[in-house]
């Protein structure tokens, strides 16, 4: 399973390295979303800083949808998904590999969006490690759910519109917990202020990774 996961993750990241879709399209989209949020909130820096945590995670969610759609489309051209199935690759390894590749792209996107939030909204982070931990756990959760729901929608003609409809409500706990942890980190709170939300992210990640490992194969066969 781990060998297959490394193989698939390496393949997806190599494809991304060549096509640069995440950097040339998804990242600019996320930055534009942040700028538009800033326009909507007005020139008051205090208001923007207050809303920064939620807006960061909304932008990350939008970018996740695009990254997952790209991950799915890579496998849908020229029957590549059939090729993967025919190779006899372990479905759990395939799921983990694709999730790792999406997570790696999201980490880069979150770093860019984090810088954007600090520069555009004047967000001041008092406890950086809480931000880092929330981003790592949130990224795992988004990649785990996104890869699963991406596979679920992959065989459908309406997958581009169905995926956000399926994924965004499911990812709401990541948005909620990530925002609360960021608020605590920006307010200079103690670690205990974000502990319950970090626990929520850990449970969310574990549950969806387990579901993905078990169900990705059957979903792939029926999609």
């Amino acid at each position, binding site marked *: 399973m781990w060998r297959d996961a490394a193989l698939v993750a390496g*393949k997806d990241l190599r494809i991304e390295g060549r*096509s640069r879709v995440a950097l040339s399209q998804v990242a600019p989209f996320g930055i534009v979303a942040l700028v538009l949020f800033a326009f909507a909130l007005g020139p008051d820096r205090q208001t923007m800083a207050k809303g920064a945590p939620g807006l960061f995670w909304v932008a990350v969610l939008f970018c996740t949808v695009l990254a997952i759609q790209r991950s799915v489309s890579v496998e849908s051209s020229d029957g*590549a998904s*059939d*090729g993967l199935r*025919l*190779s006899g690759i*372990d479905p759990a390894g395939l799921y983990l590999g694709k999730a790792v590749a999406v997570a790696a792209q999201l980490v880069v996107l979150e770093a860019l969006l984090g810088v954007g939030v600090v520069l555009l909204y004047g967000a001041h982070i008092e406890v950086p490690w809480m931000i880092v931990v929330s981003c790592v756990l949130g990224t795992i959760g988004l990649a785990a759910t996104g890869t699963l729901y991406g596979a679920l929608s992959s065989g459908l003609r309406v997958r581009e519109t169905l995926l956000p409809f399926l994924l965004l409500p499911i990812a709401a706990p990541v948005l909620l917990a990530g925002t609360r942890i960021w608020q605590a980190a920006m307010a200079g709170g103690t670690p205990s202020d974000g502990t319950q939300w970090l626990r929520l992210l850990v449970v969310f990640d574990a549950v969806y990774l387990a579901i993905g490992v078990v169900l990705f194969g059957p979903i792939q*066969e029926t999609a």
Partner: protein
Amino acid sequence: MAPVALPPSAVSLRDAVALSGRFPLLAGVDLEVAVGETVLVEGPNGAGKTSLLRVCAGLVPLASGYLAVLGLDPARNRVGVRRRVGLLSHASHLYDDLTVRENVRFAVRAAGGDVDRIDPALERWGLVGRLAKTSAGKLSAGQRRRVALAVLTARWPEVWLLDEPHAGLDASARLLLDQAVRDAASSGVTVLIASHESGPVEDLAGRAVTVTGGRVTGERDLVSAPSAPNATPVDRGGTDNVTGPVAHVA
């Protein structure tokens, strides 16, 4: 009385029915293919040839009936069957942003194949030099077909399922393909070739079965009568009337 030892079946289908939604892809196929046999599956467009190969590859599940590939049930041992079967289909299964060599390497490693066979396979299909380093997205349809064939020959599975294998290939590649099929057959590989133009591939097969309307409706021996124009109708009386040279003992 001791049972007679029969050669094992590579592919065994009995009253096999496969559906796409409510549309029947296979409507009760009976077919036995012995290990090492090369069989031509002929029939008009839409007859069910491609579906038959996809069922044998374990890509399409049976709605009813019996299927065993190399003695394994693809529904229960999906990975075990797929690792031993190779399908050359209409799609090339390539990633446009990977080079020719990277595509072959990924496919072989994903299938648990021997990476030492990659270079000989690329050479066999003329995919060397700059071509090996070219992105698959820049290749012509015929070149993509060659890459798909390089994957197949690098993997060298025990059962080859070739769907319209000559489609998109130039004359030299067709000759290479014919030679690869002969080499496979001589090494004990079982080959099923689906084609609506039986002429060009008849020399490769020992037997031809005709598929019409999702059923095997005829069969002819290509060794003793290679150019026989009329197929012998197959008795469709039931699952006991299994076609082919191998009597399957339950």
